[in-house]
Structures are given as structure tokens and as C-alpha cells.
């Protein structure tokens, strides 16, 4: 394989360098077809190995397949794959037989794999687990198996950035190149000056996908025009949002695309050193990124005097140490400098004075991988995708109570309804849709009447939320809005860096108020009842103060979950405060208890344990609870041995 590898290297490098017309050389197209597995002479078995499938048991599955092949003395090539997108279908296994289209199986485990392999290798498809087949005009089609691109989950997406995910082997640079990779990079190295690249990106109207939607081209130009001997590009690959996983899966599935995006962007701003700041828990993603960088170096795509253009670039992976605030660019820079991740006040903007005082551009993964696509397809084409103000596509990690949680990519302007009901398959278990929380801790909740909102920076801003980290969590009727907001507030108050007072104190107070609302007042003597009633008013005031006076994005957006939920789900707050009722039954301390007269044996245990003396009754007779005295602690519920206490 090593020798073959070497030969391919020369040919592939020629392939990406030469202009289009010369690509049709026979030898080259043969090799490309070989690498793309258009013609195979033995079965190819692909196993999705990403953080999602590993949790679902992909490593055990791989061992089982190897064992199977060994036992039966069969020849087959086994390749790792990234994530196709639907996380609830992991582990995914693909099997491609010579001359036939590639089959994709879902939810494969070490029990059903035998039946799948037995069947498929003998040209028979076990119907239970087959998911789709990949269309290719050179291959014979399997009957009665849907095509991948016709499945609703994929049909309604526009996969520009995810095109390779789950299809190619993320650990092979050859596959990336034969699927058109690194061509944009070498093209701009050959044909364009950095200023021209900035110009192209500015014309493409690409907006930063980190949440604020700042025009990327503009940022780059400022950095390019700042005079300095050293400039830096930082790729922010730390999601930190507790509910988003798309960048992680993306890096694991297509690491070379990130390397290419970084390389082009670094060239455009004249940076010779780039950093990738990534969460330290993303072990597999780090491993694959490092592998991709190594391969790119070995192929001369990174390093010194790249392809005799006189341009040098080094990419370094830096592990973050876990802090949500480090998603903010100045905090990220502090963290890279080896300090506490505290944001600085702006200006000066990092584009003029950033890492070690040098001009620095910080972009997130999604922004950077848009760049090769724009170069490849051209500005005009890119501008035809999306809405008038927001161009291109947007990635989301959809999770929560939907049928098919996963990573998706849709054109800007797609309606929320299409994402939730067409792509993600609607609400799981036939429950009713309640809300969708967009953008993690800095985003907000939208309800049923916002389902027709198109997803783009402006429309989402108008509803009071933000695209933020693009985590989309769908809530159903069993979820409580107050509880969800409380969850984010708890997260934010823990993650607030403590530099500015509004954020440090404000998030804590908001969390306290929410805690108060979701509890019964312990007694009527002090001011607790009054405080509860004032809760909503205070929340609103606090939220406004936070928005106006916080130093960085974390604080300014911290109030978003509260403000949006107050705006669109006010009745739920009122239910909690005035009626002391949580309809979804999530807020534990608002539960009410009753005693089932038939089941109660009168053992008096609950009455003895009750801290507020709310349970009355005589021994051997059914007891009862005085609701006014009950504080809802649930001790009686836990102590009753006869399940006579009913929680409502």
C-alpha cells in the first residue's frame, strides 16, 4: 500500500493543480475512480466511527466484523467513516459489493451484524435494518431500497458543507482530494493575491457563523491592512454550548475541509501561523485534525514555501480547558496566551491587536469551511443560495424530542417547520410540539406560532433569540419552559467569568428568581410570597440591565432565554407563580400530593415524617393531606410503602 500511496500522491497533486481541461487524462480518471471506489473488486465495509457511534458501540461492532471476516476467511476492505447526520441511527454500516450500489444500514449492533453480513454478501437484503442506497450511475441498483438523497431527512437539506460527511474516509487525504478537495486552496495560491481573496469573500456576503453574523470579508480586510510582521488566524472549534455537537461531528467526519478552510483564510489575511482552539474532551476530533494536518504537511500543502508560491503556513492544534466564555474572541485569545479566559473590552478589535498584540482573526469552524465552497463555486452561485441578507447555508445540531436528531444543513431562509417536521421527522412518540430552543444559552425559546419563521440572521434576531451556536433543541408537551430556562441560567451563572458585575451578579439573581418561581413559598410570614409575585417584573428589569451593561457577548445575550420565554410563554410563568402549577410536571417542588384512600393502611409513617405537619389521620384509618400546609417536599411520597401517595 505504501508504494501505491506514493504514486497516487504525485498524480493527485497534478490533478488538483492542473486546469480543468487537462483533468480528463485517462490514467488520472482511472485513479480517481479507484479512490472514489467506483469500481471495486472486493466488498467494502464502512463503519461510522465518530463520537456518537462510539457511544452506541461502534468499536465493539468493528471487532465483531473483523472476527466475522476472519472466521469465514473472506476478503473485504474495512474503512472508517464520519457521521452521516442522523445520530439516532448510529452505528451506521455501509456495504458496497462489486458492481452494486453502496448500501447503508442503520442501528447496527454486534447482534444483528451477522444477519446483515450473511444476507448482503449473498445478495439478499435484510429489510429491518437497511436504510438507503447511494445512487451512482456506474453501479447496479438494489431493488426496493430507497435512495439516500430521496429520504426525507436528506431531501430537504442542502448539503454543501456536509457533502463529504459520512461518505468519505475522514482519515484519508486521497479521498478528500479526489472529491475535489484542496483544489480551491491551490487555485487561490496560484491565481489570487490575499487582497483579492478578501474581496471575493466580501462580495460573497459571508457572515460569521459564530452567532453575531459579522461580515467575514470585512474582518479579514482590517487584519490584512494592519501592518505587522506576524499575523494569526484562530479557528474557534470549541462549541462549549451544552447542547451543540455539530462542529465536533463535522471535524470528525471531514477534517481536511477545516484544514483547507483555515489555509485559504490564513493566506487571505497574510497569517503564517494558525491555531485551532478545540475542546479538550473532543479526543477523536483532535486526533483526526492532527492526522489531517500531518498528511497535508507530508503532501506539501502546509509548511514552507507551499507549491513554490512563497507562502508559509503552520497550523497548531490547541486544546481548550473548558470554559463557555472562551467562545468570545477576546477571551479565547487570553486563553491561548496562557491566561484566564477573560474577555477584554473592544476596541481595539483583535483584527488590529489580538493574540500577543498582533493582528488576529478569529473565525469559527462553520465560517471557515464556507470559504473553500465559495472559491470553488464562485461568488455569484453562492449569492444565489439563501435570502437577501443572509447568504449560503446554515448548519444546525437538532436534538431533543425529535424522531431523528442529528446534524443538518439547510439553505438560509428555510422555515423552522420544515426543519422540525420534514427533516427531523417531527416529535417523537406522537407527542405535541411545544417549543424549540435555538442557539443554546444565548438563544431563546420559540413556540408554535413561530414555526413559519425563516431561519436567517435577521428574522431570528427579530424574534429576540439568536442563532448563537446553532444548537436546536425541540421540547414537547412534557417539558417545562421555566425548567429549561433555569437550566440555561444555571449554566450561565456557573460559566460567567466574573469580570463585569452585571453578568456575574445578574445571571445569579435571575437563576435565583427562577428557582423561587418553581418552588412553593415555604411560609407566608416573611416576604417570600411577595418576592415570588414580583419575580416576573424583576426578571424583566434585570434582563434589560444585563443587555445594556455587560461587557461581552455572554452577558449581553444571557438574558435572551428569559426575555424570549417571558415574551412568548408568559402564561406558563403565570401558572407557576399564581397557580403554583407546572403543567408538564417537571418542577418537582410544585407537585401536589394526595392520599389514595383505598391504598392507605393508616401506618402513620407519612404523618410522622411530614416536616410541616400537613398530614392528619388516626392509626389504621386512611390519612389525608391539608394542601395549604403542604410544602411539596415529597418526603411522604418517598416514604410510603404502599404507593398510597399520588403525585399530581
Amino acid at each position, binding site marked *: 500500500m505504501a508504494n501505491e500511496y506514493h504514486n497516487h500522491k504525485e498524480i493527485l497533486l497534478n490533478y488538483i493543480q492542473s486546469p480543468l481541461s487537462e483533468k480528463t487524462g485517462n490514467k488520472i480518471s482511472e485513479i480517481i475512480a479507484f479512490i472514489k471506489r467506483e469500481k471495486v473488486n472486493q466488498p467494502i465495509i464502512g463503519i461510522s466511527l465518530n*463520537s456518537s457511534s462510539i457511544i452506541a458501540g461502534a468499536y465493539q461492532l468493528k471487532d465483531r466484523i473483523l472476527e466475522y471476516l476472519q472466521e469465514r476467511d473472506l476478503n473485504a476492505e474495512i474503512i472508517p467513516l464520519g457521521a452521516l447526520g442522523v*445520530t*439516532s441511527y*448510529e452505528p451506521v454500516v455501509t456495504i458496497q459489493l462489486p458492481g452494486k450500489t453502496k448500501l447503508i444500514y442503520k442501528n447496527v449492533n454486534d447482534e444483528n451484524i451477522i444477519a446483515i453480513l450473511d444476507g448482503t454478501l449473498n445478495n439478499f437484503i435484510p429489510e429491518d435494518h437497511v436504510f438507503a442506497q447511494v445512487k451512482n450511475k456506474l453501479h447496479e441498483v438494489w431493488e426496493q431500497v430507497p435512495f439516500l438523497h430521496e429520504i426525507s431527512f436528506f431531501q430537504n437539506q442542502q448539503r454543501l458543507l456536509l457533502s463529504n460527511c459520512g461518505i468519505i474516509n475522514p482519515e484519508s487525504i486521497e479521498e478528500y482530494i479526489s472529491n475535489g478537495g484542496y483544489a480551491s486552496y491551490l487555485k487561490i495560491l496560484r491565481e489570487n493575491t490575499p487582497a483579492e481573496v478578501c474581496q471575493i469573500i466580501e462580495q460573497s456576503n459571508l457572515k460569521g457563523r459564530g452567532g453575531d453574523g459579522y461580515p467575514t470579508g470585512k474582518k479579514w480586510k482590517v487584519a490584512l491592512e494592519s501592518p505587522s510582521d506576524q499575523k494569526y488566524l484562530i479557528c474557534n472549534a470549541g462549541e462549549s454550548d451544552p*447542547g451543540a455537537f455539530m462542529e465536533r461531528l463535522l471535524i470528525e467526519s471531514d477534517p481536511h475541509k477545516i484544514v483547507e478552510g483555515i489555509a485559504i483564510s490564513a493566506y487571505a489575511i497574510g497569517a503564517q501561523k494558525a491555531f485551532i482552539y478545540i475542546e479538550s474532551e473532543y479526543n477523536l476530533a483532535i486526533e483526526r485534525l492532527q492526522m489531517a494536518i500531518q498528511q497535508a504537511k507530508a503532501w506539501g500543502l502546509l509548511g514552507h514555501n507551499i507549491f513554490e508560491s512563497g507562502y508559509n503556513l503552520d497550523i497548531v492544534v490547541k*486544546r481548550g480547558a473548558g470554559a463557555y466564555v472562551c467562545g468570545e474572541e477576546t477571551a479565547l485569545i487570553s486563553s491561548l496566551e496562557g*491566561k484566564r*479566559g477573560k474577555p477584554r473590552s473592544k476596541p481595539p478589535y483583535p483584527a488590529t491587536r489580538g493574540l500577543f498584540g498582533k493582528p488576529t482573526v478569529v473565525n469559527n469552524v462553520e465560517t471557515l469551511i464556507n470559504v473553500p465552497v465559495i472559491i470553488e463555486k464562485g461568488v455569484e452561485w453562492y449569492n444565489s443560495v439563501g435570502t437577501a441578507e443572509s447568504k449560503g447555508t446554515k448548519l444546525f445540531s437538532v436534538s431533543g424530542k425529535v424522531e431523528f436528531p442529528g446534524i443538518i444543513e439547510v439553505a438560509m431562509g428555510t422555515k423552522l417547520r420544515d426543519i422540525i417536521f420534514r427533516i427531523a421527522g417531527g416529535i417523537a412518540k406522537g407527542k405535541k410540539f411545544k417549543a424549540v430552543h435555538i442557539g443554546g444559552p444565548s438563544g431563546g425559546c420559540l413556540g408554535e406560532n413561530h414555526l413559519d419563521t425563516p431561519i436567517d440572521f435577521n428574522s431570528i434576531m427579530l424574534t429576540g433569540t439568536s442563532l448563537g451556536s446553532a444548537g436546536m433543541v425541540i421540547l414537547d408537551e412534557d417539558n417545562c419552559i421555566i425548567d429549561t430556562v433555569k437550566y440555561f441560567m444555571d449554566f450561565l451563572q456557573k460559566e460567567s467569568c466574573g469580570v463585569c458585575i452585571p453578568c456575574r451578579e445578574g445571571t445569579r439573581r435571575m437563576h435565583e428568581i427562577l428557582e423561587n418561581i418553581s418552588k412553593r413559598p415555604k411560609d407566608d410570614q416573611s416576604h417570600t410570597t411577595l418576592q415570588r409575585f414580583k419575580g416576573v417584573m424583576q426578571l424583566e428589569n434585570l434582563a434589560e440591565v444585563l443587555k445594556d451593561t455587560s461587557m461581552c457577548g455572554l452577558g449581553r445575550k444571557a438574558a435572551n432565554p428569559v426575555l424570549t420565554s417571558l415574551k412568548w410563554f408568559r402564561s406558563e410563568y403565570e401558572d407557576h407563580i399564581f397557580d403554583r402549577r407546572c403543567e408538564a410536571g417537571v418542577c418537582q417542588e410544585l407537585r401536589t400530593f394526595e392520599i389514595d384512600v383505598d391504598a392507605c393502611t393508616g401506618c402513620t409513617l407519612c404523618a410522622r415524617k411530614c416536616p410541616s405537619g400537613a398530614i392528619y389521620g388516626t392509626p389504621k384509618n386512611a390519612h389525608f393531606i391539608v394542601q395549604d400546609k403542604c410544602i411539596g417536599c415529597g418526603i411522604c411520597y418517598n416514604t410510603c410503602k404502599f404507593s398510597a401517595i399520588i403525585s399530581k
Partner: protein
Amino acid sequence: MPEIDQILEKYPFVQPENLIPILQEIQDETGYLSQEAIVRVGRYLNVPTSKIYGLATFYNQFRFEEKAKFQIKICNGTSCHVKSNILIIKEIEKKLGIKLGEVTRDKMFSLEETSCMGACGYGPVISINDKFFTQMTVVKTIHLLDSYLYKEEK
């Protein structure tokens, strides 16, 4: 502390930006940041120990207590949260008699929450020493903990 010296040797230049990678490597190697380790790093990098401690406590990754034998991590991503992971946390807390972020007295179990593990289709997820358990319910949790406790008794 030979292992710490070995790590420090990899960073021959005294640069403050190496502080976080050094601490990360020490934690990877020894499982936590001991007092001696912090003092040693401070001497090497010429940074006051208080500064290092201040930095390390800022980030979520660093631990200052010895690792337990079985580290239970429970995913507290938004998706697992809306799928009621709180019930499982409560169950483990009740069973082991510790709270989130604590270690049992015999250093057998520790309980931590982590951010999203990326398996949102399979929530709630917990992991015990890098072994994953998916779609947890209260009953499953009880069985799982019992099996670990049983193993321990043996």
C-alpha cells in the same frame, strides 16, 4: 516527581502560554493537579503558585482531588436534560450518598456532569471510566450501579 519533570522537559522555553498545555498534560498523566505539581510548575515557569491556582480553577477541566476508581460522568447536554437526566442524577446521588462533583469516601465512585457528549439520539447518556451506557432509565441505573458495587465486593 519524575513524571512531572518529564513533561516539563518537553517545554524548554519558559513561555507563559505553555502553562495550560503543561497543566493539561500533568492532569492526563496523573489524573489531577496535586499541590506539589502546581508548586513545581510555578518554579519552572517563574509564575506565582497563586496565579497558577487562579488559572486552573477558572477552567472546568482541571481537578484538584485524586481520581476515584470508577468515574461516573453524566451528560448534562440540553438534549439529555430535556430527556429528564435529573432523575438519573438523583438516583445515583441517592444510591452512592454523594452529590454531583463529589467522590465517595472510599474513593470508589465519583460523580460529575459533562457537557454534550454528542450522542443526543441516545440520551440520557452516562459513562463510567470511558464505557458508555445509553438511553438510561432509573431502573437501568440501579442495575448498572448494582453490578459495579457487586464487582467491588468480590
